[in-house]
């Protein structure tokens, strides 16, 4: 029968199923293929903290959302247009998020009495009218998969596991995507088990054919390639981008990269990723605990490496004392905090921005550090390089804040050429004549004199030192001077950080000021509001300590400043404290990123519908 292909601009798809259903895999395969066909995209995985929660349970539902488009997009989408629900629990958990009229592809094989009960459905939603208003396509995915694999020599369980590829094949048909990227992946992944290669490929193809031949599918969609800046692209998650950014910084600086780290969600992928790159002289020290991770990194920095430590909230707290040591010894060190919902264990797989004030103030004594925040998954690449550069050139610890949303989310990265990237100047002291450990250059930076250099033998440590000479000193005036020098040195970083850019009008009624991972949602919200004819501007902070030079000036050019953040007002607190500027807050602490609509509504509320035309 004839099938119609409709060209659309923009789609949000969510895959949802049991933690064991392979939804993350299905989602990332769909993402890879979508990237290859040239759409702009943004992804948001959402999975439970339990590794394999009981099958069919509501809390065990794992989801993967993908927003792709033929135009430039910034977020994984507020409300899915299409939901693939592998079981009743997945339907129940995700239904409320969908657009009205959304398409729901349902694995009807999983809608048996047991699963319905586990999902707290008293009656079958496929039959009781719950789904009225949606475009429901019920497909017995499990059954069809089993049938397609009938003659393959695998256990029933193994065959059943292939159903996610059937679903994926169906989605490939629906959105007119090629199968080859996934086929190649299957062939590599299951190389040692030819029967699994065959089974998964066949399930994928069967899903595709099912869409093509059966009558329940009448329409397929096409999203054309996006007009992105010229270049070679790859899709990248925030954690991967962070890891590659540090290796690039190592190549750029010529320093060996040393990571001291202890596994913690959602930062572990950086450790795992970096451990693959031995041929880049990357040393990954999986330490016995968080404190050892940072302490070893400090040791490595003393010995002349580009030293980093990666963690999330609880581990960040544990590293606090050692961070003070790095401040005192004035060694280059990057601490990556992939923020997650806290306090304590909190919601480990969920995102939040509530570590900013800890990054700023969470140490004893006067212990200033540089703080950077990445604004998108691909930006993690650049900020890792920037953090390394500042740490090395200013001999200071730098905290790089990302979060769970950036860590697991992904978007296309236009791969820069090596020489487009910032230079990192390493100046090891070798000249013994006139050497003292706390000599200062024009930026108050002390020399990096590493063990192995003849004639520069010296001792540093946590005790206060006399300026210039570096001997242990309890002198009151010297201490005050050193405290001020350490602060001024961090403030001097302002010289090399870019001015804050304002997108939209450079002055006026309302500025929306954000930091870190909220960039995309704010940007889309502002776009929508401006489409309606209202005037509102955006500025986004990637440098938080020190702030960009012109921040105070920017703030003063606007009557109102709105600060949306995923905490109870950390940036707002800093802005109010430093610039005595009253701000309007929009705060959310639900372990989820902002929806575009939430920011949009707040902007409209603040504007009071006033300045539109």
């Amino acid at each position, binding site marked *: 029968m004839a099938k119609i292909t409709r060209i659309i601009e923009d789609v949000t798809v969510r895959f949802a199923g049991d933690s064991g259903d392979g939804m993350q895999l299905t989602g990332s395969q769909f993402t890879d293929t979508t990237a290859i066909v040239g759409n702009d995209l943004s992804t948001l995985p959402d999975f439970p903290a339990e590794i394999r929660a009981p099958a069919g349970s509501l809390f065990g539902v794992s989801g993967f959302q993908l927003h792709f488009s033929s135009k430039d997009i910034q977020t994984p989408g507020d409300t899915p247009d299409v939901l693939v629900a592998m079981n009743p629990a997945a339907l129940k958990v995700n239904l409320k998020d969908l657009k009205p009229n959304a398409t729901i592809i349902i694995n009807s094989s999983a809608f048996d009495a047991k699963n319905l009960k586990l999902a707290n459905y008293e009656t079958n939603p496929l039959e009781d009218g719950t789904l009225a208003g949606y475009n429901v396509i019920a497909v017995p995915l499990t059954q069809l998969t089993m049938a397609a694999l009938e003659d393959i020599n695998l256990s029933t369980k193994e065959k059943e596991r292939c159903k996610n590829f059937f679903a994926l094949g169906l989605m490939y048909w629906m959105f007119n995507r090629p199968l080859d990227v996934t086929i190649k992946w299957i062939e590599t992944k299951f190389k040692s088990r030819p029967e699994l290669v065959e089974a998964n490929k066949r399930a994928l193809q069967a899903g595709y054919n099912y869409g093509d031949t059966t009558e329940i599918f009448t329409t397929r969609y096409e999203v054309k390639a996006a007009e992105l800046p*010229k*270049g070679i692209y790859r899709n990248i998650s925030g954690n991967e981008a962070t890891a590659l950014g540090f290796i690039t910084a190592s190549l750029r600086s010529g320093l060996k990269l040393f990571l001291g780290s202890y596994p913690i969600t959602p930062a572990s992928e950086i450790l795992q990723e970096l451990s693959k790159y031995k*041929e880049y002289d990357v040393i990954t020290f999986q330490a016995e605990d968080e404190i050892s991770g940072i302490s070893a990194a400090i040791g*490595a920095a003393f010995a002349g490496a580009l030293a980093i430590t990666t963690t999330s909230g609880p581990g960040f707290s544990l590293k606090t004392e050692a961070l003070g040591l790095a401040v005192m010894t004035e060694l280059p060190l990057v601490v990556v905090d992939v923020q997650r919902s806290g306090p304590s264990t909190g919601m480990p797989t969920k995102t939040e921005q509530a570590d900013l004030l800890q990054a700023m103030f969470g140490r004893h004594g006067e212990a200033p550090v540089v703080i950077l925040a990445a604004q998108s998954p691909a930006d993690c690449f650049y900020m890792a390089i920037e953090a390394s550069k500042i740490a090395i050139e200013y001999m200071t610890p730098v905290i790089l804040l990302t979060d769970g949303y950036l860590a697991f989310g992904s978007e296309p990265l236009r791969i820069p050429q090596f020489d487009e990237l910032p230079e990192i100047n390493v100046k090891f002291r070798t000249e013994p004549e006139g050497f003292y450990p706390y000599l200062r250059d024009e930026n108050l930076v002390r020399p990096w004199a590493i063990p192995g250099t003849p004639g520069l*033998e010296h001792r540093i440590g946590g005790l206060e030192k006399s300026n210039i000479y570096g001997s242990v000193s309890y002198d009151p005036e010297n201490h005050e001077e050193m405290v001020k020098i350490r602060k001024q040195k961090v403030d001097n970083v302002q010289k090399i950080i870019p001015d804050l850019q304002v997108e939209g009008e450079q002055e006026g009624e309302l500025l929306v000021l954000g930091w870190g991972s909220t960039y995309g949602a704010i940007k889309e919200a502002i776009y929508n509001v401006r489409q309606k004819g209202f005037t509102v501007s955006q500025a986004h902070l990637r440098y938080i300590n020190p702030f960009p030079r012109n921040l105070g000036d920017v703030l003063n050019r606007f009557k109102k400043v709105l600060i949306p953040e995923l905490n109870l007002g950390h940036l707002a607190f800093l802005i109010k404290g430093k610039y005595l500027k009253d701000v309007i807050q929009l705060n959310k602490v639900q372990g989820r990123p902002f929806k575009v609509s939430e920011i949009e509504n707040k902007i409209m509320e603040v504007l009071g519908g006033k300045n539109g035309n």
Partner: protein
Amino acid sequence: METKIDEVKPQVKYTAKDFIPDVEVRWCPGCGDYSILAQTQRVSPDFGELKENIVWVSGIGCSSRFPYYMATYGFHGIHGRAAAIATGIKLANPKLQVWIATGDGDMLSIGGNHFIHACRKNVNLKIVLFNNKIYGLTKGQYSPTSEKGKVTKSSPYGTVEFPFNAIKLADAAGATFIARTTDRETKHMQEILLRAAKHNGLAFIEIYQNCVIFNDGAFSNLTDKETKADNILLLEHNKPLVFGANRDKGIKLDGLNPVVINLNDGIHSINDCWVHDEFDDNPTRGFILSRFTDIPGMPTPIGVFRQFNKPTFDGDYVNQIEEVKAKKGKGTYEKLMFSGNLWEVN
């Protein structure tokens, strides 16, 4: 000895003076730390390393001021973390000879985790534990090596906890050179330090160190002329375990139990004595030796309990990097970034 002392690298001729920096040493007069410092400076010229390649790392405590008093590279860390800091230094530059000066509180209490894991991995570090069985810098609280019942400022009625046996702990955790000496046995200490320097792997030295202020006389039975000979047992490779003022007492192994025998009783002779084997592959005897200090009536062994060869963490790490490089070729930016699923926008 198994370690190859003759493999000394070509080097400048140093004297002890080269290791004495121009700073005032600030331990209490009479503190055992002075002796440890002096012996270390005396033998450092023979460590077989250029001065610039030696790094002393420490945590917090009286002993941890040590790096400031050595004219090498030094890093005075934070409480308990010396082993972690030192591991980072060693991994970042395996050519360095990395020493740790630490105390019983620093290494066995707050730093216990880092200590056992450094031992487990056999990181090529030399850990010198100044054991004075007390917290000195914080002015006299009991430590994890204080004997049970010890009355201190924080245990006015005596402690109700058992102490760590540092030798036992180090051996069990995986250290590959385990030795003990005391601050008074200067020649012996020098010899032990030198052997630790030459050992390829984690060398652990416990030095009984007298804190004259808060725990004076803790080791007097091992240092006083009258009692010393009857309480100290000098471990020497391939020699029978004999001690006593008249060298008339020996140690015999009765099954797995060590017993003191009288060599002049007409029943026992030197041939009954346990002959010490430092390089014993089997850890059992070393373990029995380490327990002497827990058994009333047994003498306290000093010397090398055990020394054996095992691949080091840093060595294997470097090897792995070299193997991967040989297989994959050295990494480049192009290989790093332009890989995986790429697409081009024109």
